[in-house]
């Protein structure tokens, strides 16, 4: 690794403004994700969590500075951002319904120039339920399986940063637990930083290193995840207990 | 500069309507008082024929939300009905018109019935099939239609009560009068359909059959009848056309799919979301067509261009196709749509505030600035965020 200060942060966002047409949703937010960190962005519906994800991965026009591993990606197209090493698991999972499970994974490896077969086998081993269904059309998978597939697909590109937009949405609690456990393991084993947005985030906070609170387009609190869990006010407001 | 606001039903509004009506009446009736040549009456007749055909298409598109490229089949059916009745059975011309209308209506309804089931592109495909089929059918039943040779010598002499002679000039004046009457009838039919309660509800539910069922609109019946009426109007235009041509021939472009596309071009150029659009479109089409035909011979054209254009067919069509595509970028609502947009910077019609007497709608001029059932062009574009402006 080169010793420059910038590699301390995989993602550095400064003064990010973004929105849809005339409606501005993010009013200048700052956040960082360090190497090998899991960072959670909490917020209620409409706070701007998905918008944040989309702005980082270049899907929507944005103002401000977005730096990935020291490189300015503020004006880079989505597919180039992926090639740089960012993988985005969108809300709703973005599954390629008509393609087989295996082809979905292959698509995930699109930006790579080598043969992805080894990685495909690897991820199918990590997610045995997917392995059973490798030749089936992805549209026939259950919600939980599609979520696993979406994460595996994103990891096929060997990203340094994984963006997960509400991965627990629509999943049964048991599956949510399993998924977050898997994310934590992946983070430990593969040197992939994770930026996670969640609405209802008991479990997300449990695996995170740091967290941000997003309220109507602005960051209102940030810090160590465990400390924030201990903070009564935050717990009551966002975690419901 | 803020636009002038005019209340609907106010005196200013009536004045505007009067001016509009007067202008149109002048344009329509003045040819009778100016001493035009026979072929000039003929040109005006051609414009009216195209306008009527485009009007019929506009009605269909407005209610079904899909493109039809099959009006040429009904156009041809009306034309051949008139030709066959006159030539094979010696009918007097005026009696062929109602037959053509009824026949086309019936066939239109028959086409409309299966068409009810269709969504998206499928209606277009069926209409394409019709357009393809018509010339083939004409050629097939050659005993009736004269096949590829066609039917010749169709002559429409003015009836004696008009005081016109059987000269070429008087015949052309009479045909113009007939075309004008039919166009006005067509306009009124379409307008009243559009303004009726049924018409309005059709537009509201056009794209959503579930909502229609819930609202109790019998979409099926209305769609079918619309097909019929649209076909009838196209057939009427065809009847006048065949008389103008004085012959029927299956190779004529307007009986083929290319003719159906030309009607579409006219409708789009004029503007789909308006009752007057087809008329404006017909005028523009005719004039541009005329212009491009005579272009290679114009003196002011540089020699190089002249050499290039010499003996090159289809300049007009190439120009129109390019124009059509360009219009989709620049002015998808056609000339009338563009004019409306510009006009709204100066004059805006506002609804009468409640309590100001009965909301008497109707009248003539205001409807020019009110949309015919918003066609898919208008509805989808209005879903886009507008950048300020009216």
């Amino acid at each position, binding site marked *: 690794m080169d010793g420059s200060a910038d590699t301390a942060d995989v993602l550095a966002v400064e003064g990010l403004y973004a929105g849809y047409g005339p409606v501005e949703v993010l009013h200048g937010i700052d956040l960082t994700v360090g190497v090998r960190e899991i960072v959670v962005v909490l917020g209620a519906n409409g706070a701007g969590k998905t918008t944040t994800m989309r702005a980082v991965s270049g899907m929507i026009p944005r103002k401000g500075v977005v730096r990935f591993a020291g490189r300015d990606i503020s004006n880079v197209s989505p597919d180039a951002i992926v090639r740089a090493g960012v993988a985005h698991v969108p809300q709703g999972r973005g599954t390629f319904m008509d393609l087989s499970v295996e082809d979905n994974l292959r698509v*995930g490896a699109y930006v790579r120039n080598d043969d992805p077969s080894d990685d495909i086998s690897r991820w199918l081993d990590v997610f045995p339920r997917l392995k059973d269904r490798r030749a089936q059309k992805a549209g026939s998978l259950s919600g939980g399986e599609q979520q696993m597939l979406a994460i595996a*697909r994103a990891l096929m590109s060997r990203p340094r940063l994984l963006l997960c937009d509400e991965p627990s949405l629509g999943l049964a609690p048991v599956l949510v637990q399993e998924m977050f456990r898997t994310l934590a393991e992946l983070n430990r084993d593969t040197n992939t930083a994770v930026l996670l947005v969640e609405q209802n985030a008991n479990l997300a906070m449990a695996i995170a290193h740091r967290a941000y609170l997003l309220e109507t387009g602005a960051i209102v609190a940030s810090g160590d995840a465990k400390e924030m869990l201990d903070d009564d006010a935050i717990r009551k407001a966002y975690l419901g207990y | 500069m803020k636009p002038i606001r005019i209340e609907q039903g106010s005196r200013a509004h009536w004045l505007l309507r009067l001016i509009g009506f007067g202008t149109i009446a002048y344009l329509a009736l003045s040819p009778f008082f100016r001493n035009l040549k026979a072929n000039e009456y003929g040109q005006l007749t051609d414009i009216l024929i195209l306008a009527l055909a485009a009007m019929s298409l506009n009605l269909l598109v407005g209610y079904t939300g899909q493109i039809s490229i099959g009006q040429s089949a009904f156009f041809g059916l009306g034309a051949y009905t008139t030709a066959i009745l006159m030539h094979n059975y010696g009918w007097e011309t005026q009696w062929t018109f109602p037959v053509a209308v009824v026949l086309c209506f019936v066939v239109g309804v028959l086409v409309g019935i299966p068409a009810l*089931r269709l969504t998206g592109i*499928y209606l277009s495909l069926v209409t394409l*099939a019709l357009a393809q089929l018509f010339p083939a059918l004409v050629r097939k039943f050659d005993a009736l239609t004269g096949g590829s040779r066609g039917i010749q010598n169709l002559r429409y002499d003015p009836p004696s009560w008009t005081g016109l002679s059987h000269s070429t000039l008087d015949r052309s004046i009479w045909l113009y009068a007939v075309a004008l009457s039919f166009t006005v009838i067509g306009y009124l039919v379409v307008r009243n359909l559009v303004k009726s309660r049924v018409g309005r509800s059709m537009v509201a539910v056009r794209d959503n059959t579930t909502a229609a069922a819930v609202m109790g609109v019998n979409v099926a019946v209305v769609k079918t009848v619309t097909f019929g009426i649209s076909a009838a109007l196209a057939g009427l235009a065809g009847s006048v056309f065949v008389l103008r041509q004085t012959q029927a021939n299956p190779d004529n472009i307007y009986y083929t799919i290319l003719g159906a596309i030309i009607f579409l071009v006219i409708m789009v150029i004029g503007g789909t979301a308006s009752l007057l659009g087809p008329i404006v479109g017909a005028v523009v089409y005719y004039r541009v067509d005329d212009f491009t035909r005579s272009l290679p011979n114009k003196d002011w054209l540089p020699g190089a261009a002249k050499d290039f254009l010499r003996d090159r067919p289809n300049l007009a069509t190439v120009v129109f196709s390019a124009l*059509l595509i360009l219009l989709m970028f620049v002015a998808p609502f056609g000339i009338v749509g563009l004019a409306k947009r510009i006009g709204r910077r100066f004059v805006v019609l506002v609804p009468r505030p409640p309590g100001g007497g009965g909301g008497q709608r109707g009248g003539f001029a205001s409807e020019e600035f009110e949309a015919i059932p918003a066609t898919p062009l208008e509805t*989808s574009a209005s879903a886009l965020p507008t950048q300020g402006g009216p």
Partner: protein
Amino acid sequence: MKDFLQYLFDGLSSGAIYALIAVSLVIVYRGTGHLNFAQGEMAMISAFMAWWLSSNWMPIWAAVVVSMIFAFALGAITEGLIIRPIGQRSQFAVAVAAIGLLLGLNALAPFAWKVTVPQAFESLFPKKDSDFARIGGATWRYEYIGVLITLLVVATLLFLLFQKTKLGLAMRAVASNPDSAPLAGINKGRVLMVSWGLAATVGAVGGAMVASLRGNVDPSMMLAIFFSATAAAMLGGFDSLIGAVVAGLALGVIENMVAGYQPDIIGQELKGSVSLIVILVVLLFRPSGLFGTRRVERV
């Protein structure tokens, strides 16, 4: 039996042409969701291009290959410059633009090459009167066999492209979920252009086949074929390549059989009506076609 085989052989060759154009339509539909009304005319212009090149500079097969490259460029540019920008405003406008393209290309051929009569096109296959095989008493002309083989080669190449290559995977991904594809690093715009380009290329092959069988190029030569090809694509379910091939061949055979066994009622002039009936029947009873994926309407 001899008649049956004859109609079968003849039908397979016209069916092969329907299949080629139907495949083009399906590639565009799957790739970008539009029906390219101008597909037939693009094929026609490509055939004219091949005719022009072969009249002046090259042997016919080389000319056809160059016309395929021309077609690719034509398709890609049309998608990028015309279809996509207009498509962002309204789907209706795209259909109108495609129809405008139909009219324009149809008029452009005589305009650009200053021709008003059909122009002789050299055959791609052996075409002498004696070039046929005798099977079961019926004659199967070598050129008809050639067209069929061409279809099978094209279909196989396409299958390999879509299933075994990265580009094919990208095209399938964009077709399946166009919003998700950029997240995997796929350049959506480029893929869309390639879809149209590829479709036009396949269409050019079809156009060349038509010109070769007819012995000439003529601006109106693809109009009826486009219609039958659309019927075939519908029959096969608009999103299935295999369906397009099978349906195209079937339609060609059925048309020929019907016209052959009922020459008085149908005959050559009304062969197209068979396609019309096919369309109506499919739409009434099975809107998703024979092979297509069923879509359930949720109220």
